[in-house]
């Protein structure tokens, strides 16, 4: 069932533009502890944290922890049949089942049903304001900004964020919600740099000026604008 649908070339292509895919998996702990073939993992280094993740080869992108969380989530409540495999289509707005199949089912049948359910969803909620490709591009930019910040490259991170915010201005609120925590992280870094400049006012005013001066212009219009100007004002007052 897994290979007939989730690894089916046609279904993968179709799902890329027509669905969001979720899996819940029974007996996963037993499978992993027994070293079953399906438990094979590959290592991925997270560029943000530097930590290595072990993701299942059969379920790329998912770790054991992700799988366990999915098994504890609402996703696991849709199969009331007590049998596997079980496949269902869920409306994300009501979180209710639209269709379901107990036992094996062909990718073709699932795709035909999804087409109808997709029409129903869009009839009720309208067309989306962005495509998945655009969403992935936004997430890619956010990731780039965070990676740059991880390398202490504030200028790169800020430039990436600024260009993204400009593009995302007219996009749905949910997109802004994804940008917000990244912006906060970048501003936290800038705040720490300004505090560093403040601490250097007595000891090394030239360095303090360099730090605050390089940030002041970029931080215009943000909550840190006043702080940067205050530091520069203090430096000017000393002369």
């Amino acid at each position: 069932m897994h290979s007939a649908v989730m690894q089916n070339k046609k279904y993968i292509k179709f799902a890329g533009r027509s669905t969001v895919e979720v899996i819940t998996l029974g007996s996963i702990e037993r499978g992993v502890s027994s070293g079953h073939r399906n438990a094979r993992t590959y290592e991925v280094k997270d560029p943000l944290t530097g930590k290595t993740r072990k993701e299942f080869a059969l379920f790329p992108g998912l770790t054991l922890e992700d799988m366990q969380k999915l098994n504890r989530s609402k996703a696991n409540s849709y199969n009331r049949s007590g049998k596997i495999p079980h496949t269902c289509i869920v409306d994300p707005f009501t979180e209710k089942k639209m269709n379901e199949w107990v036992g094996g089912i062909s990718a073709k049948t699932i795709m035909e049903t999804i087409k109808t359910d997709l029409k129903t969803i869009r009839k009720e909620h309208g067309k989306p304001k962005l495509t998945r490709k655009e969403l992935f591009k936004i997430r890619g930019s956010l990731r780039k900004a965070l990676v740059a910040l991880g390398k202490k490259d504030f200028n790169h991170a800020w430039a990436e964020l600024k260009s993204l915010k400009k593009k995302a201005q007219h996009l749905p609120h949910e997109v802004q919600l994804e940008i917000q925590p990244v912006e906060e992280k970048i501003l936290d870094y800038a705040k720490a740099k300004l505090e560093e400049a403040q601490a250097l006012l007595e000891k090394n005013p030239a360095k303090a000026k360099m730090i605050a001066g390089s940030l002041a212009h970029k931080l215009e219009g943000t909550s840190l604008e006043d702080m940067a100007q205050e530091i520069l004002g203090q430096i000017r007052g000393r002369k």
Partner: protein
Amino acid sequence: MKPQRSLTSVAVLGLVSLTAFSTTAVANPRGDKKVKPERSVVLAKSWKAAVQEAKLLKLPIVVHSHGFY
């Protein structure tokens, strides 16, 4: 006339195949560098993320409930 395989060569071939199969069946249960991700649909990392993305893109969610084996 087709060449006939001797009983010994068939046995050796079988033994080699069995060894190869058993090696792949039990090896690298975790984090092996030789293991590569298999072709698959993109899976949501959490239910919350799935709902959020599906609402944003106005798409249905497909929930697959499978067993490990």
